[in-house]
């Protein structure tokens, strides 16, 4: 906690600290299935060619946009639509 307090107050972070924080956050927020998928994606990106990596990137970006569109983040038009209905 002291270390986090120092970081929030502008102290520099060592690479090993960053990696440890990242690992802890990932382990606590993702399921084991999701961690396995992340490892496989990392492995895929290290081994694949540029073309397949680009297709994966577009695919992920489109999936993320679909999730965003399904959320209710943009309230303006939605509210406007609900009012006029």
């Amino acid at each position, binding site marked *: 906690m002291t270390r986090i307090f120092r970081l929030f107050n502008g102290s520099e972070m060592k690479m090993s600290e960053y990696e440890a924080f990242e690992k802890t956050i990932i382990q606590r927020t993702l399921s084991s299935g999701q961690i396995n998928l992340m490892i496989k994606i990392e492995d895929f990106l290290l081994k694949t060619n540029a073309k397949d990596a680009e297709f994966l990137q*577009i695919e992920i*970006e*489109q999936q993320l946009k679909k999730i*965003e569109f399904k959320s209710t983040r943009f309230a303006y038009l939605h509210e406007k639509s609900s009012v006029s209905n």
Partner: protein
Amino acid sequence: MYNFTILERMILESIRKSEKTIEQIQEDTAMESHICANVVQSLLAKSLVSTKSNKFTLNKNLNAQIIEELQNKKNQTVEMNALVRECIQGSLLRGESTFQFMKVYMSEEEKKILNAMLYNIETFIDGLKKNKGKTKDETFIFWGGDTYAKAVTHYLN
């Protein structure tokens, strides 16, 4: 790069037919209201559509970069993949009989017969292009075929 999804493409196609209010776009596309609103909002932010008296119209003065993004072949491939995947999932996972796939050996003579039939199908479908109706009621039709070796070669490269 602005990656278009099939949702944005569907709404752009709906607005291209005629200018519409948000409710008319919803009715034309059968998209849930908040999803429809989110997609339209995203298109507005990208200046692909504009509003006039509560109606949305296509922006006719798109800059070259956006036109290039709209026509990006890799992005279109992923969009088409999404559509094809949904159709294939319907057949393989949900047991629907909407789409059929077969792998057969054909002699050169049989390939010619198939190509003639496909040509007839294409001519028939071309004739349907003038039909008008709601965007949600348009039907996807895929046709064609390719050799196993060619598909695998492209898959490997």
